[in-house]
Each structure stands twice: as C-alpha cells, then as structure tokens.
C-alpha cells in the first residue's frame, strides 16, 4: 500500500510532458486570478482596509475568493454546463436546449480551431513555424464565400465544392511562404507574418468589390452563403443548438492527421525533416517538396478552418472576420503548442481554449470582467508550456531519467 502510494507520488512529482502541461494550466489560471484581483476596484479597496481590523482582513480574503470564484464559475458554467439548469432539465425534461447550449457553443468554436491547430501542429512537427494560419484561413473564407454565395447547386455538390474552395484559398496563401522558403530560403516566420497583413488588406478589398459585397450595402459585408453551402446544425435547426457538421469535419481531420503523422510514409518524411533536415535530405527526402507540401497541407487545413467557421457559424464575411489576435490562426499557434503538436493533444487544448473564449463571454455578461481575460490566461499558459524548466522549478518536479522531451523550437532567422 505505502509502496504503491509512494510510486503514485513519484509519478505525480516527476516531470512528464502531461504533468508540465497541467501545471502550466494551473499557473495560467493563477495569473488570471492575479490580474482580476489587481484590477478590480472593490477587491483592491478591501485589501487597502486590511490593516484596520481582523474582520477587514477576513473580508478582503472573502471578497477576493468571491470575485475570482464568481468569475471562474461563470466561465465554467458558460463553457461546459450549468449544474442547476442541467438538473432542472433532467428532472423536468424541459429546457434541454438551454442546458446544452454552453457545450454546444464550445464545440462550435472548437471545430475550426481544431482544424487550424492541426495544420499548425503538422508544420511544427516538420520544423516549420506557420505563423500565417490566420491569413490562410481568411483567404479560405473568401474563396469559400465566392463559391458558396455566387454559385447555386444542390447541397451534395455545393457544400463539398465550397469546402474545397476554402481549402484551395488556404493552399494558395500557404504556397507563397512554402515556395519562397523552398526555392529562396526566405524565413517562413517573416513571410507568413507579413502575408497575414497582406491578406487582411485583401479581405477588405474583396468585400468592397461589387461582386462579393452584400447588395444594397456600402459596408465591408459579403453576401450570405446559400443554404446549400452551409454546414447544417448537427442536431437540426429545431434543436436551437449551433453546433454543426463542422465538428464532424474536424473529427475527420483528426483521424487523418493521426494516420498521416503516425502511419503514412509522407508523414514519416515530414517527421524526419522536422527532427533533422540535413539527414532527411541525405536520406533521399526531397526537402523542397516537403517544405512546399507542409505549407500545402498546413495552409489547406487553415483554409478549411476558415470555411468551416464561415459555413458553420457566421455564414457571411465582414471586415472583422478572423482579424486580430482573436483570429483562429493566432490562437491555433498557442493551441498547437499546448497540445504538443499532436492530434489528440490538440483536440484537448482546442476544447480548452474554445471553452475559455465561450466561458469568457459568459463571465463578462455575468460579472463584468472583460472576456479578454481568456486571452491573458491562454497566453500565460503557453508561455509556461514553452518554458518547461520554469514550471518544473516552480513545482519542484523531479527530472525524469529519460523524459521524452518535446522541444519546441524554430531555427534562427538565418536565411
């Protein structure tokens, strides 16, 4: 008994990738709590009064716990499930829509995130930092919008064609850094970073063009996708739940990615290239082809994420589509890092980050704490994940003898 308990303790305190990730999560939420505490006037006032009496001190502690607890509770109930409402649905059989809405929302947001993150993760595993998933996703959305809103066909043809157009849009943007890196050695980080802005400008440009602009509109708003090009709600329109067939697309992508990385010959080439590019070349792997293919796959998945977002959730494009740091493409980088670039890990981290986003909105509505706190927590978590030794030091973890260390690294600029 004590032997097994000791072993259990040993495992808990020995550094493993999973444990480091969990600890990083804890630290991320601690950072979030600190941010709430230091920026909420009532809490600060309570702490200012702490020296006057024990009661005031206790009050400050109590208030802090209340405020942070309320925020995180609102986040959880907004993203996963509200036990009270759920229980009500179970006992009365009524209100299932309301009870399942949080989960449905999280899954809705997670679907494109999973797809884009897997694209970023495959690139990472090949040693390539695709920072341009956002641009690729935007052009995927634009291409999908053309196909989805300007063409009219039966669903069986139209939906696949729309998704294919989205993939093609992402591939086109991905090919630019891919070809430039393969043939001129241009560093993909700089090229993809710059292309994000080029594509964002291009988005506005196309939205203002008469072809795609919503008729009768002066603003940068596109036509709405034809119903035959939309990803229908998974449980039917009558369910009132937004979760749509995009989730099924994401599931297919996960299965594909697992097979690709673990079982396929091309995936093996990718992994060899990522682990040792020179050895890859010497062993007959065509480095240029791999680089271009990585960007085709990574860009294509980002484009697919863009069109899944469009066809499943928003149904039309506007100037704010995926723009800024809230963009799927940027979140995908952090999601992929958190999931250690592996398909299954990415599924979990996508669910977590989608939940943080959805729950953040619920938190803002319930407590007034801005939803940007979710971004802060996400960034902090990834900073800690990228610095495993720091986490190890904070939690005083033992160094495992032969830990299968995943080093997340890009090369320097050296073009």
């Amino acid at each position, binding site marked *: 008994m004590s032997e097994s308990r000791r072993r259990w303790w040993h495992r808990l305190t020995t550094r493993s990738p999973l444990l480091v990730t969990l600890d990083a999560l804890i630290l991320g939420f601690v950072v979030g709590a600190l941010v709430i505490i230091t920026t909420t006037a009532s809490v600060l006032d309570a702490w200012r009064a702490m020296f006057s009496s024990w009661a005031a001190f206790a009050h400050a502690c109590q208030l802090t716990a209340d405020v942070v607890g309320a925020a995180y509770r609102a986040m959880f109930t907004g993203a996963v499930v509200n036990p009270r409402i759920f229980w009500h649905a179970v006992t009365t059989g009524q209100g299932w829509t309301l009870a399942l809405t949080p989960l449905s929302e999280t899954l809705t947001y997670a679907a494109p995130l999973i797809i884009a993150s897997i694209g970023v993760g495959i690139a990472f595993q090949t040693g390539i930092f695709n920072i341009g998933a956002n641009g690729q996703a935007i052009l995927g959305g634009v291409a999908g919008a053309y196909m989805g809103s300007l063409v009219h066909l039966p669903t069986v043809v139209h939906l696949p064609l729309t998704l294919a157009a989205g993939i093609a849009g992402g591939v086109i943007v991905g090919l630019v850094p891919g070809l430039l890196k393969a043939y001129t050695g241009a560093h993909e980080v700089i090229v993809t970073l710059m292309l994000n802005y080029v594509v964002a400008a291009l988005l506005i440009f196309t939205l203002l063009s008469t072809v795609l602009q919503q008729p009768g509109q002066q603003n940068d708003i596109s036509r709405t996708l034809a119903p035959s090009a939309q990803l229908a709600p998974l449980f039917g329109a009558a369910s009132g739940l937004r979760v749509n067939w995009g989730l099924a697309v994401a599931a297919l992508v996960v299965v594909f990615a697992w*097979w690709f990385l673990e*079982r*396929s*010959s*091309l995936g*093996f*080439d990718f*992994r*060899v290239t990522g*682990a*040792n590019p*020179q*050895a*890859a*070349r*010497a*062993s*007959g*792997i*065509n480095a240029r082809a791999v680089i271009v293919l990585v960007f085709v796959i990574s860009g294509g998945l980002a484009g697919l994420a863009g069109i899944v977002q469009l066809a499943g959730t928003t149904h039309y494009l506007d100037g704010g589509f995926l723009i800024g740091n809230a963009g799927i493409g940027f979140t995908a980088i952090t999601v992929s890092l958190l999931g250690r670039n592996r398909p299954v890990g990415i599924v979990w981290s996508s669910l977590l980050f989608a939940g943080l986003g959805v729950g953040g909105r619920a938190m803002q509505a319930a407590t007034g704490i801005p939803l940007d706190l979710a971004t802060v927590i996400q960034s902090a978590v990834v900073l800690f994940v990228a610095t495993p030794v720091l986490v190890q030091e904070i939690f005083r973890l033992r160094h495992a003898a*032969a830990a*299968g260390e995943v080093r997340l690294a890009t090369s320097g600029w050296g073009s």
Partner: protein
Amino acid sequence: MRLELRGITKRFGTLTANDHIDLTVEPGQIHCVLGENGAGKSTLMNVVFGLLHPDDGEILIDGVPQRFANSGDAVRRGIGMVHQHFMLVPVFTVAENVVLGFEPTSRLGRLDRARARQEIRHTSQQFNLEVDPDAIVENLPVGLQQRVEILKALNHDAELLILDEPTAVLTPQEIDALMAIMRSLAASGKSILFISHKLKEVRAISDVVTVIRQGRVVDQVPPTTGESTLASLMVGRDVTLTVSKEAAAPGAPVLELDDVVVRDDRGLAAVDHVSLRVHAGEILALAGVQGNGQTELVEAIVGMRPVESGRITLGGQDVTGATPRSVLDSGLGHIPEDRHRYGLVLSLSVADNLVLNAPRRAPFAHRGTRNLAAVRGNAESLVSRFDIRTTSVQAPLSSLSGGNQQKVIVARELSRPLQVLVASQPTRGLDVGSIEYVHRQIVEQRNEGLAVLIVSSELDEVMALGDRIAVMHAGQITGVVDPSTSRERIGLLMAGATGDGHE
C-alpha cells in the same frame, strides 16, 4: 610560466571525462597531450582555459593555486588557447578579432583602431607572424586564420599557449610552418601545451609526451619513444594499424567521374575537374587534408550538391545531378562524414533509423501507409546480425553509444542491394573495437565485389584500407598511387605536388 595540474577531475553525468589528471608544463617546454578522440583531451584543455570548472583538483601557475571563473580569467593569468574550431568572428577584421575583450579605447569607450593596428604589427613582428590587420577574417585561408588565433593569444600576453589539434585542417607545408612557429615561441620562453592524436607530429615537436586514455594519465614518456609503443599506450593494447585483407580482384568500373567540377557554398570551384574510377571489388581511398574538396565531391556523388560540369555514372547509368533519392535507389550506399548531422535522426527509434533512406520500399510501406510490423522485424534481424547493442529496437537512437550508432548506419547501408559504397571518415570518433569492426565490414563488402570509395584524412586508415589511393589537393587529384607508396610521397601529393602516378 610553469603550469601544474593536480588531480583534475571532471564528470559529465555518469561519464568521467577527466579522472585525477596530474601534469606539469615547464617554461619553454612543448608538452604534448596524446590521446585518442574521446580520451578527454579537449575537456582537460577547456578546464585549464577556464571554460569548464573541474569537479576536483587544482591548477597552479608558478606554484600559486588558481580559480578561473571563466576563460577571461585564464587569459588574464597568461593562458592562451588556439581552438580546434577557431574562435574568430568571421565578419570582423583581424585587428578587431585580436583585440576583442582587451580593446584599446580612447574617450567615451571609443575603439582606438589605430592603436589596435599598431599593437598587432608590433606582436606580428616580434614573433614573425605576418598578417594584414585590416583583412576580414572570413576571407583569409585557414592557415592564416590559425595564425590570427595565435596572434590573438600572444597579444593578450600569453605565457602558455594551448594548441588543440592544430594540424587537423592544415596541409603538410602549413604544418611545417606551424611547427617552426611553435619552436620559436618555445625558444622565446613560452610554454606550449600541444594536443594531438597524430603520432608523427607528436614525436617531431614535443619535449615531453603525456598519454591520456579514458580520462586518465597512462604514462609520461620522452618523444623518442617508438610509434608502436605510443600507439599501444594510447589505445591500451597492441593494435595492428594494418587491416588484414587479400589482394583485390578488381572488376569493371562501377562509379565513374569524368572531369567533374563542383562549387562550394561560396561559389568557388571546390572540386576542380576531377576524374576517378572505382572498380567492382576494390577499395579506392581518397586521401587529403580536410577541406580540399573531398566533402563537396562526396556531396556531388550522392546528389546533395549540384555538379557544375562533367559526368558521374553509376553502373553505366548517368547520375549527374540526380536527386539523393534516385542515387540511393540506383544502388549507392553512403556512410556520411558527420553521422549525427547527415546519417541519423537521434530522436527517432532505432527501427525507424534502420529504414531511414528506404521507408517506402516493400515491405516497409504499402501505398503510402507504413507497415510498422515489417519495420520492426527488419530492425530486429539487423540488430542481431550487426550486433547493435540496444535495449529495444523502439528505443530512441540517442540512447545508443557512438559506436553502436555508427553500426546502425553501416547495417542500414549494407542491408540494401548495393553497387557501390561511399564512406566518408567512417571511423572518426570511434573506439578501437568499433574501428576494427567497421574496417572488417568494409573489406568484406569489397571481397564480395562491391566497389568502395573511402574518404579519410587519416593517412593510416587510407594506407591500411585502400587498394589504390587517390590524393586530393585544392580540388584536384594530385595523384593516384599504390598503397605501398611512402608516406612522404603521399604527404607531398597532399601538399599539391603533382605525382607521376596520375591516371
């Protein structure tokens, strides 16, 4: 300066690189530390130079114990080091490199370039080391870069100079020049610690030789000690430097190079109109000082570097400018020079590494999906056939020793149907046991009719293995000779003197 090391011990994890090393260098003495690659010489020198901190033991200069927090401290106490990989900033001028860390300045921290130049001219003249202070280092030939390193040490008033394998990149003539410099420095009272594993040089230049094996001092001997004695001290048993092999029975030419020109990364012709023929059933050894185009030549043969002009054929088939994949598929086995960089993927499993250059070949994959059972089966049979010591075929390659990693490459290459084997520095960094093993495998393959091209900068290896020896200098073949040719003659060819034995 009198340098004394007492009981220096340095461990890296479980490995003890230096185990209670005692050593004394007298003023004006050239003291050689002789040992195999991996014996702990470089670690010891890094300890003396303050780059590593000893776990135990002390360093005394003129009887006074020293503690070096970093190499700057060592430099300030009068120790200078010429590193195997030069510690020079390529884009800086000679003057900037020499004064770095000890810059003369005028007001406001402004670099006093005039004074720097003057200091360097002064030191140059004093020790007869001519070099232009305004030249950019990366534009200088290797021999001159080394001179800059020596100048840098002397400019910091070094009284003891550490030279770490200084001859590895030099031509025989440059080596002679270096030895002359070393002698004159010693004559002017400087102490010199000379690190080497080359017996001839050691005997030619040293006053005292300390032999190190597996981190321990084995013996201290005078330089007049015979080569075979030194060699056996180094490796710990009597070694035969010759490989036992029957006479070759060469067949038709398999690998043919006609007038091949290859450019290096800077766009210069590194391989300059080279023609070579490797016949079935013979070993052609390519000798030469490192950096004379051998690397580029091999890269061109295996398809990793474009061929500017000329023709390469493999078994009659033109492979000029072919991709590595098609060259490998047409029956070329390649044991690369830098195995960690080009031959292996340390984070992948032994099994994956054993199919690294043919992952799509049946039965390892079918229609783009890998057959992991076949990959494992292949690995298990190769591991037992080639005696690769590993806990499991699924273990990451990084868990294997250097010799076993090299065996993985050899096993992988020799388990494919081959016409020709190209091996670059196949035994670099290996222990004696592994060297013998690799040599035996190579000779066996040649006996079975394989054409073998060995590239090595170790003259002993070249002479022991080669059925014919081609010598390369400055991108050209200066001669193709019989292995019975004298070392002196081969040395001359390595220095660029064209021989009579040219094909």
